[in-house]
């Protein structure tokens, strides 16, 4: 088995509004058109407070990174503006990387993302990593952006972001979607040439080709593990043609894990919440998932013939299709080592909280993961010493 010494563990939070109304199952989708009267700001505040505490605890427990992400018009996530959460985390944390995984560039002006992310990178003293997603199909129903031209616009936005960060400003940009007379973003990122970037996709060949071309990291979400690993294999092969090496640290995999004293207990404590996540959190319609032009007709054909992952799934289907485990530290460590080897990945996203999981279970899960699972993989406990250069930078 390959070494697991290089593994890094990314603590990921969806920050859902999990207080669904009693009749929520009468809605075919908890995205796009799920009425916002079901959001109670008082409960929302409780969730934000609690979730932020969990993320701060992750820093204290030694997780290597804290991950936030962006979704719109859904109970699935309360982070339409993940940079705000990242900014709230920066002064409460000292060592973990802050990962905004991320704002779909299409849904913002690209120079604004360049500015925001540079702010976060400077404010955190170089702790930022960012992922650039195209955005789920659902986002295109609630943002005034054409899904049929999304990929071209996305590509242009990435070029603008990179130009803003790597070419001394002011520069100009003239494209099909954007035109900048003075591209001269202040501030500029702390990390040079820029914070580590990943693309996020759902396994479509267009995104894999783009990651290979740009030499970026890659992660695919909510597609079966086999398809994810195939995407990594394709990337390793295709990157070479562009003079890039797709190294282990560029492959990000997501693991839905619950750790407890025994496997029985882990499954019993976990089951309801992961089911809630898939059955209710991800519940949406094919129309919302794939607005016109969001995928190619070839890709649509493939997806129509594949199992629907946004709906009712059995535990067996979940554990077959995704990196899902509820078990003891030994078994969890073993599973992660295997997943890491199969994907040739050293960046493991750990979903500690899912669905309507209560705080005590999240704390138990993440604590056991940090204290019992990580040392089994890295043969040492997480590094709890704040990074010296950061301390110095703060002076």
């Amino acid at each position: 088995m390959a070494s697991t010494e290089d593994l890094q563990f990314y603590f990921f939070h969806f920050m859902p509004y999990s207080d669904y109304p009693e009749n929520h199952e009468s809605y075919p989708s908890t995205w796009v058109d799920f009425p916002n009267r079901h959001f109670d700001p008082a409960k929302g505040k409780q969730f934000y407070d609690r979730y932020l505490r969990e993320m701060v605890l992750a820093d204290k427990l030694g997780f290597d990174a804290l991950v936030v992400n962006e979704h719109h018009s859904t109970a699935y996530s309360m982070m339409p503006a993940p940079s705000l959460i990242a900014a709230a985390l920066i002064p409460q944390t000292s060592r973990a990387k802050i990962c905004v995984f991320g704002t779909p560039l299409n849904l913002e002006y690209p120079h604004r993302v360049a500015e925001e992310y540079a702010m976060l990178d400077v404010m955190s003293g170089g702790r930022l990593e960012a992922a650039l997603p195209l955005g789920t199909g659902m986002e295109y129903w609630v943002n005034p952006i054409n899904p049929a031209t999304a990929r071209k616009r996305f590509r242009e936005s990435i070029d603008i972001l990179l130009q803003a960060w790597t070419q001394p400003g002011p520069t100009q940009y003239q494209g099909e979607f954007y035109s900048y007379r003075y591209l001269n973003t202040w501030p500029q990122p702390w990390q040079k040439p820029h914070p580590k970037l990943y693309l996020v996709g759902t396994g479509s060949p267009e995104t894999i080709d783009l990651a290979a071309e740009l030499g970026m990291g890659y992660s695919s979400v909510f597609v079966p593990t086999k398809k994810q690993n195939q995407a990594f294999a394709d990337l390793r092969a295709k990157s070479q043609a562009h003079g890039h090496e797709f190294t282990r640290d560029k492959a990000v995999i997501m693991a839905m894990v619950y750790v407890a004293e025994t496997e029985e207990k882990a499954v019993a404590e976990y089951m309801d919440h992961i089911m809630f996540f898939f059955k209710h959190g991800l519940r949406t319609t094919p129309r919302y998932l794939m607005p016109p032009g969001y995928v190619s007709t070839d890709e649509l054909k493939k997806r129509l013939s594949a199992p629907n992952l946004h709906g009712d799934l059995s535990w067996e289907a979940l554990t077959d299709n995704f990196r899902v485990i509820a078990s003891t530290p030994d078994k969890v460590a073993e599973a992660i080592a295997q997943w890491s080897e199969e994907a040739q990945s050293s960046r493991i996203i750990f979903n500690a909280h899912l669905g309507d999981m209560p705080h005590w279970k999240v704390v138990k899960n993440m604590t056991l993961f940090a204290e019992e699972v990580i040392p089994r993989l890295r043969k040492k406990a997480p590094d709890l010493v704040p990074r010296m250069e950061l301390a110095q930078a703060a002076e």
Partner: protein
Amino acid sequence: MAEFSRDEYTINGVKSVVLSGGKGEPLVFLHGGGTFHGWEFAKPWMEHFRVIIPFHPGFAESGDDESINQMQDYVMHYLDLFDALGLERFNLVGFSLGGWMAAKFATQHAHRIKKLVLVAPAGLRVPEAPSTDLFSVPGEELPALLVHDFEVIKPHLPAEPDVDFIVGGYREMTSVARLLWDRTYDSKLAKWLHRVTVPTLLVWGEEDRIIPAGQAPHWQKLIAKAEVKRYPAAGHLVLDEKRQAVDDVAGFLQA
């Protein structure tokens, strides 16, 4: 009844398939945003006209061109195609999305059009009688919305869920989305419709649930020589539902 013959052209590098048949003055028909309901309705026209039904790029058997993303691109495409077909002056009939296309073409090239027929045209923003946003309708509910009598459209639908049928519809919706995802109307159209100086017939099904017949007076007000014919017990696909409407179009063009 005679069948259409099929010809392929390459226009600006894009495969453009054209159905045609019949003898007489040319009648060009610009189709709507979905082609699954076929061309049976247009066959009676062949008795009096040389009927020409081009498939827009991105629809039916024509090829895709993702750089066609504005209605004006289709106007330019058809200038090229009509040149290739040697069409100087012709009758132009447009349905729904194709009605918008025909109207826009007519605002710029009225001299090439003998008479114009707009069948339930899209393109105007009419707050008093708003169009249905097709993107907001689940695909499986759409066919029933298109007609007054479901039996008319039933033969064109697959009996069992069919991946190729869904993918074909998705491709055409993608072509429609390139044009009008951002807004499903042209806010400038009303300003320039006075450029349509040719005799114009507006055809509408009274029960049109996609583009309501209540939009007809707005078109009539904006086009000087426009008359309106409305058909009871007919939906958006009024030409498929009412043979009388097909005959009236022919009668209008012959008069």
